């Protein structure tokens, strides 16, 4: 007996919808109850493999001490993803003071004017020594021009990304402060005086001639 096309299609439709719905439901059920969860629960999952050791960051690891207790990262992530922040991640700018020669290349390269550098001449040092190095993270767009242009790798990207803060002013960071700066300024003053004396001596000599 030949079943008319329309009726055959009608029942085939029902059959197909039931089976496809069953397949779909099985797939979601499997995913929901038998598959590993991928969520990286960020503040409690460690994404840095220990808090960043980049010593170059200014005084605190986190810019905002309010978040510090939250960022304990006690749990290890057990999902299929890689929770680590990438090695070449363009995080907050870091600064390595001993390497810096205060050549001002970074300051000039910056299109926004994020960086302020000031160097002084010190006796016994071939290059200028920095006495001011200020980065305004609030303005920074992480373009990396300063990092590229730096001849001594004194300024570089860290993996630190936890810069959130309640006050924009917290984001202006001074890297050279306190003792070092005072000492440098003193040395510079001495050097300047000495230079002036030298000049004066020369002038005196000149006059005497």
């Amino acid at each position, binding site marked *: 007996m030949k079943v008319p096309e329309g009726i055959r299609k*009608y029942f085939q*439709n*029902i059959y197909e919808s039931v089976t496809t*719905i069953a397949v*779909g*439901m099985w*797939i*979601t*059920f499997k*995913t*929901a*109850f038998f*598959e*590993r*969860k*991928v*969520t990286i*629960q960020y503040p409690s999952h460690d994404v840095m493999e220990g808090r960043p050791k980049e010593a170059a960051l200014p005084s605190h690891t986190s810019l905002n001490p309010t978040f510090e207790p939250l960022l304990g990262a*006690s*749990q*290890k992530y057990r999902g299929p993803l890689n929770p680590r922040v990438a090695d070449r991640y363009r995080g907050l700018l870091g600064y390595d003071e001993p390497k810096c020669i205060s050549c001002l290349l970074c300051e000039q390269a910056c299109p926004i004017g994020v960086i302020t550098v000031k160097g002084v001449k010190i006796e016994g040092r071939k290059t200028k020594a920095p006495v001011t190095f200020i980065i305004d993270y609030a303005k920074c767009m992480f373009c990396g021009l300063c990092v590229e242009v730096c001849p001594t790798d004194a300024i570089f990207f860290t993996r630190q990304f936890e810069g959130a803060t309640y006050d924009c002013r917290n984001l202006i960071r001074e890297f050279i402060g306190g003792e070092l700066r005072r000492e440098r300024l003193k040395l510079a003053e001495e050097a300047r005086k000495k230079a002036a004396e030298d000049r004066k001596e020369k002038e005196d000599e000149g006059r005497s001639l």
Partner: protein
Amino acid sequence: MENLVDELLREFWLFQRIGSIGTAALVMLVCGVAVLNFFGLIGGLLTFFERKLAGWTNSRRGPNRVGPYGLVQFVADGLKLVLKEDIIPAAADRSYFKFAPYLVLLGTTLSFVVIPFGPTLIISDLNVGVFYLLATGSFTVVGLIMAGWASNNKWSLLGGMRSAAQIISYEIPNALAILLVVLMSGTMSMQGIIRAQAGGMHHWFLFSSPFSFLAFCIYFISAVAEINRIPFDIPEAESELVAGYNIEYSGMRFGAFFAAEFGNIYVVSAVAVTCFFGGWQLPMLGETEDLGRVGAAVGRFLAGPAVLMLVMIAAAPCAFLAWKASRAFIWDMRRKRPLFPSRFVRLNSELLFLAFVFASMALFLALHLPLRSRLPVIYTLIFVYLLPFLAFFAKAMLISFVILWWRWTLPRLRVDQLMGVCWRYLIPIGFVCLVGQGVWLCLFG
């Protein structure tokens, strides 16, 4: 409820002083508050389950920050909705706009009047219970179309129109499936329908004939369509209508729509349980008397030496876990971290939770000791009243789970497909089932 009023009037002089009208009003108030609270709680829990399930099907974790396992999330969400600014569009029809959400909510809450929670726990066992349910369900249509119209927004109006077309269409297969149940049980009262399924699982209407099984499928599909859930959620299809009829709503007015949607899930599941899954009947135990007998037996068992043994069995793991967990709390002041950084540190909240569970079990069992002589009576009461409630609730939750599950599995139907499913498939099959069931009853009934 009527029985309760009568009884109160007969037994207590206090109620006699208030008079029959006062007592009735008081009982109504208490019932209303109880059921509305249940409605709120169940709606909230269902939103939580839905979000959790949504997370799991996407391989995420879902909400897990507020309260243990994120269980209190819905309270936070509700609070947020209450505190949000309530915006009414300038061009909206203000009075209708304000009224519509309550009408939708009313459609849901009114259904709770006839939903049974146990053999005696029901607000009012109307003799036209099922009919009443179908009628109150239609409140929702009015509310939705009112919301769509009053918003003065094209998307809203389209959503409202679609919902009207959809709900009215799907009421037919819905009613057909329920008609079949009425045919089988010979009554429209909810409790009557449940009592007609007494005597074990094979008496449940779901399994009693192939036609009633089909009727359940029809009921389930059309019920999902009636409460506008995916795959039948074209009234609020977000890819086409942004949010459908509730697009202009914010704050608690939106919350009302939301609560109604999730309350409706429970209502629909409860009706399915009543009509097809034997209501509050337990799968294996048939009659209420059986329950009482089993309860008395359990009570007699516990009145023996069993309690002491069970207390000890429950207390031992509790003590062990508490000891384990406490190790994680010995704090190393200098290094600012726990002294024993084993994996128990990570697990300590779970361990404490387990310890708490075992401790409460032990405490609960210990409470049995002074009540020994009364245990058979107490357990008879528990088995007769509490177990049926739990059975009903568990079944309803199972069906709600399938509704949530569908939402995260199936794609949305097109409008013409939606109408096609209703008019070309569900309704003809429904009629065939109705006739078939009649024949079946004549042959085997």
